[in-house]
């Protein structure tokens, strides 16, 4: 079976935080201890919704050393493919679910002299765990957190109460903006910047840091891409000798799994590279959406990341 090792858990608490975000707490079904993790790690939550199984990654936001429970925060996306709606509407306290072992694609670089965190909206969640991790070692950090409105500012009160000197909040509707050039200018040598938020914010931070002479290795970002719906298409899996149909609202990876073919994955969000699949033959156009393959690879039609990318055309044959 692909993906990280699985853990059977029970939902022990559900707390609605605001109009859009709800927090879920999981403990092991067998009462045992969960693995520790490192700040920035995510878990892949399995959602069994009738015939459909959705596997969505969520950042762990609890204390990485707390082995009694994991917590995640899920932002409701009414336009998405239904994973967040399932969590909000269908999951109840006491439900048993399956989650994966923690996987970290957004870890702290502990060589840094200072950690500068930039969060947008629900992008706050990995930083909550990283802050708890750094506090244990008296780490040097600073958070700049942009939210749409005060009422949608998840965890703002907790952060400003516990860390008044490190936390800086910006409300979009009050025209507060992170003064990024000034913020980056004058940071001590050895500072690393981390950004988690919408695509535009990540590009803004990466572009500005590069222009200000920050090394690429000192700029960290995490953006989970939800697979986007698209036109249905047909795929031939050469190794398994199967022809499968990819539906409008499912990803290519989900369709492969539905056909009973074991395909590797970890993040399911176009970032980690695990699901990279060789293309044997195609007539048509790829709709690449991942961050893993480079521009040349996106252009040459030799590989596809089935977790987020799609295809439009006549034939697609994969080495799977």
């Amino acid at each position: 079976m692909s993906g990280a090792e699985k853990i059977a858990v029970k939902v022990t608490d559900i707390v609605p935080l605001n109009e859009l975000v709800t927090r879920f707490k999981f403990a092991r079904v067998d009462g045992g201890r969960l693995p520790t993790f490192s700040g920035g790690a995510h878990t892949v939550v399995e959602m069994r919704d009738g015939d459909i199984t959705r596997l969505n990654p969520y950042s762990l936001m609890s204390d990485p050393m707390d082995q009694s429970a994991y917590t995640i925060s899920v932002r409701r996306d009414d336009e998405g493919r239904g994973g967040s709606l399932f969590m909000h509407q269908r999951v109840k306290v006491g439900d048993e679910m399956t989650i994966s072992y923690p996987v970290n694609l957004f870890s702290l670089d502990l060589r840094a002299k200072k950690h500068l965190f930039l969060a947008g909206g629900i992008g706050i969640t990995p930083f909550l765990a990283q802050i708890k991790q750094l506090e244990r070692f008296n780490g040097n950090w600073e958070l700049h957190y942009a939210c749409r409105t005060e009422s949608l500012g998840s965890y703002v009160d907790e952060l400003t109460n516990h860390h008044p000197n490190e936390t800086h909040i910006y409300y979009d509707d009050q025209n507060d903006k992170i003064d990024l050039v000034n913020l980056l200018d004058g940071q001590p040598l050895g500072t690393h910047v981390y950004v988690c938020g919408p695509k535009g914010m990540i590009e803004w931070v990466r572009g500005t840091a590069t222009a200000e002479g920050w090394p690429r290795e000192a700029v960290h970002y995490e953006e989970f891409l939800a697979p986007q719906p698209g036109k249905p298409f047909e795929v031939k899996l050469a190794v398994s000798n199967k022809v499968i149909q990819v539906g409008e609202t499912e990803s290519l990876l989900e369709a492969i799994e539905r056909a009973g073919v074991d395909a590797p994955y970890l993040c399911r969000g176009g970032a980690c590279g695990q699901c990279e699949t060789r293309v044997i033959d195609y007539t048509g156009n790829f709709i690449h959406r991942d961050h893993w393959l480079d521009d040349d690879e996106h252009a040459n039609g030799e590989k596809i990341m089935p977790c987020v990318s799609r295809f439009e055309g006549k034939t697609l044959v994969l080495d799977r």
Partner: protein
Amino acid sequence: MSKFTFPQSIRSRPVYGTLEQRDGAAHLLIADAEGAEAILDVATPAMMAKAHIVYIPKGAAFEDKLRGLNAASFYAGPSYGAAEQRIHKALADAKMGLQVYLAGTEGLMGQAQNAAMQAGIPHTAIQTEHRGSTARRIQCVHCKGITEDVETDPFVCAHCGLNLFVRDHYSRRLAAYQGVCIDAEDPGNVPEPKGIYE
């Protein structure tokens, strides 16, 4: 001829590039001997207005030319050891956006890279260009003493006197290659020393 093409080797062996100007809040350029030529190649007036040059001539005649670049700060000193305090101070005062350029011998670049890494710059973000002598800085794996400017293989450890074979295994932490006793099993059976790249 200050450029040398190093033969292919193991992954541990450092690979040097060609300095190129990068955008940044400030520029720290550290060079020895013929490394000055690499600085002269990359320097522009705009870069020099925000530049600090640290130069160890080692008998080479480039000091006046480098001084003529009119860097915001220029220092020439007799050895890396003499310049070390200044380099550490420059790094301690620096902010993100500093660009580091190293040029010259492997010993100079390795030690300056180590100082910059400890100050928090990822080693991959530090530019290097080899010029001049191909002599190596080598740590004896037996006594741990470091011998500077080793040109032959094997050579005699300046600290413990063992006959050492020059390896391509390199440590960024020590800024040194590894030297291993060549006649441990048959004392006195030492091949004739020759140039490291002969």
